[in-house]
């Protein structure tokens, strides 16, 4: 004969404070689990989506960051003639000359000026960077003082909302659009018209920082690189966009991976201890009550069932609560320093339905297994013995 499930529900209600603490504690555990995983997911997404393998970045030899590189117009033209470069329908090579500078913007969460990367491009740059999508507004118009702001940059800095105007090098730029690029580093950047950026920064019009080139196929990269290396006019490094961005974020990646993992591991252990402790404690103090149930005539299995059912309910409630608490953090933007260019990079927390379910599953596993020890113990104890225990 099973113990009626209302017994479990009543028992949860009757022990309000310890049930509440158990639920809160599990909610905390789940919340931490989800936040840590969401951060890791968001960060991995940024890394994975940053840069494709058929895009090649070309920098002056030895430049560790794009803004340190210098490329002349002649060199740019020369590169355009190299084979293996993809061409558009009109036969123009897909080459994007770009100027990269950093400029101070007011960082919302640290409340100071932080350096953001500003990239001047031609409108045709979108052909070389097809992963860039405008999610709000439109791309800038050629010859207009307009910004297209990466999604994360818009979250990170003050005054980069759509339609707002902001000062850069003494000129007012208007935010015409917000862009997304699958979580890549570009989402931390601000793009504008190449020529206007050169003018604003008093740069010669025939000098760029870097070039991006789209190849016919990623298999052509080595051959393409060889041609660049062989050309005496070009003292250039060619790297795939992917490997370049990996280099750029190596410090950040290591920091986040190692520290994040370290802290998350200890926290997970702590959280498990905490959840175990509350659930276990709340049952262990009830051995007598459970023995009474046995004495009345309920079977061992049904008493175990009751305990597990009760811890299931507690951990399920805790799990759901934890999900609710962490939900507002979806898309929360985390930012840090790109140690190569000393500009800010950001990525968003990514809370998916799958992650929420995993969080609840995590809660149930901890909660129910914590209920197991007292459940098993209560069966090992003979009812007569248990009743005598104080």
């Amino acid at each position, binding site marked *: 004969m099973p113990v009626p499930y209302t017994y479990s529900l009543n028992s949860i209600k009757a022990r309000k404070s*310890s049930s509440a*603490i158990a639920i*809160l*504690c599990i909610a*905390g*555990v789940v*919340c*931490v689990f989800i*936040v*840590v995983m969401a*951060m890791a997911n968001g960060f991995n997404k940024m890394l994975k989506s940053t840069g494709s393998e058929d895009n090649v970045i070309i920098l002056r*030899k*030895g*430049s*560790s960051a794009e*803004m*340190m590189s210098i490329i002349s117009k002649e060199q740019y033209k020369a590169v355009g003639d190299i084979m293996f470069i993809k061409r558009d329908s009109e036969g123009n090579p897909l080459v994007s000359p770009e100027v990269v*500078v*950093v400029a101070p913007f007011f*960082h919302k*969460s*640290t409340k*100071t000026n*932080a*350096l953001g990367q500003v990239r001047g491009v031609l409108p045709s740059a979108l052909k070389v960077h097809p992963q860039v999508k405008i999610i709000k507004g439109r791309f800038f118009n050629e010859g207009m003082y307009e910004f297209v702001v990466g999604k994360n940059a818009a979250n990170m800095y003050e005054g980069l909302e759509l339609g707002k105007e902001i000062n850069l090098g003494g000129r007012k730029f208007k935010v015409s659009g917000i862009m997304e690029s699958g979580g890549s580093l570009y989402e931390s950047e601000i793009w504008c018209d190449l020529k206007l950026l050169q003018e604003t920064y008093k740069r010669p019009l025939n000098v760029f920082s870097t070039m991006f080139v789209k190849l016919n196929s990623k298999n052509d990269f080595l051959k393409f690189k060889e041609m660049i290396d062989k050309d005496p006019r070009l003292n250039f490094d060619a790297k795939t966009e992917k490997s370049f961005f990996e280099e750029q974020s*190596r*410090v950040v990646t*290591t*920091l*986040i991976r*190692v*520290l*994040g993992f*370290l*802290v998350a591991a*200890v*926290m997970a*252990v*702590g*959280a498990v*201890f*905490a959840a*175990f*402790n*509350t659930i*276990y*404690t*709340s049952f*262990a*103090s009830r051995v007598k009550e459970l023995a009474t149930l046995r004495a009345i005539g309920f079977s061992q299995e049904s008493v175990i069932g009751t305990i597990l059912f009760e811890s299931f309910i507690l951990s399920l409630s805790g799990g759901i609560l934890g999900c609710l608490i962490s939900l507002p953090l979806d898309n929360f933007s*985390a*930012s*840090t*320093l790109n140690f190569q*260019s*000393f500009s*800010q990079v*950001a990525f968003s927390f990514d809370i998916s339905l799958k992650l929420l379910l995993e969080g609840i599953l995590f809660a149930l596993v901890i909660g129910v297994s914590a209920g197991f*020890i007292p459940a098993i113990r209560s069966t090992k104890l003979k009812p007569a013995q248990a009743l005598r225990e*104080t």
Partner: protein
Amino acid sequence: MKYLFLLKANIKRKKIRTFLTLGSYFAAFLLFGLLAAIQSAFHQGVDVAGANRLVVANKTSLIMPLPLSYKEKIAQISGGKNVTFASWFGGYYQDPKNFFAQMAVDSETYFDVYKEFKVDKNQFLNFLKDRQGCVIGKKTAEKYGFKIGDRIPIIASIWGGVWEFNLRAIYTGTKPEDDLTQFLFHASYLEERRAWGKGMVGWYIVETKSPDLTYSVSKEIDRKFSNSSYETKTDTEKAFALGFVKQIGNIELIILSIGAIVFVTLLLVTSNTMEISVRERSGEIAVLKTIGFSDKLLYFLTISESLFYSLSGGLLGMLTAKLFTLKGDPTGGFLPAFYVSSNQFALGMFLIIFFGFLSGALPAYRVYKLKIVDALGRI
């Protein structure tokens, strides 16, 4: 302590519960120790900043260079005592994962400004005599087993090629937070060998005659170079480092706040456990009171039990964290100062005792207030 066996009996009463409570404290303070180490790693620059040192960097960005010719001009400014400069070299030893900072420095003056770095006099003279000589911090030397006289090849990712250096001196620090990982060599060697960027340096460091002068000297430097093609931004070393910490962004904040949530949750749990175990024992406590144990004595015994858990679990956690940090920087070089400082350790100890008291306080108060007649009636 004649009451010790009472405490011992209570602690052994429910072994699993004791284990879980100790484990909770252990995890909480292991976490605390690691977070402390992370914090000191991020703030290392701030901690070591000299009160009368200024950093002069390119106004646009730290990675943009300044002309070498500024040295003379900065030296003329009154209030300054020593001027030196450094440039980022950006290479690696054998594998890009082997990260330590290499800098080309003005070898004659660098150690005059960074007085906390100690170098043996003879070694230093040997370094000055050798064009390809280098000075390495003790930590890096130990990590890679470098000995005086070794020839060390560095792969130069910015300048290209393999550059070889002769280890002539090893510097040590004066404080635990001093950065002993740097690899320093002659700026003249960099200047001689690099193909471009000649005549430029990374940044200047200026030592003023007294800390009071830092403000006026920094203003004077920036004024002097305003409207030149290389404008400068001069900050005290501390402000510079703090700015850098802020640039690291809210990652630190996120890690620390998640840690704090877990920390508080764990303490909530230990308090709850203590509470439940006291409630279970209310009959026994009433008996003790009947026998003549005073309310105060029982209050004290309950708090002691709670303190026992926090002290043994917490200390073990802190020591584990300390041991872990003694193994060195887990990122393999990006955080030269990954350590639990004695201040942080003291704060940890304070928190252990504080939370031991706090999680024992409510249950102990319950014990204090417990009425014999009510509790015995409950048996």
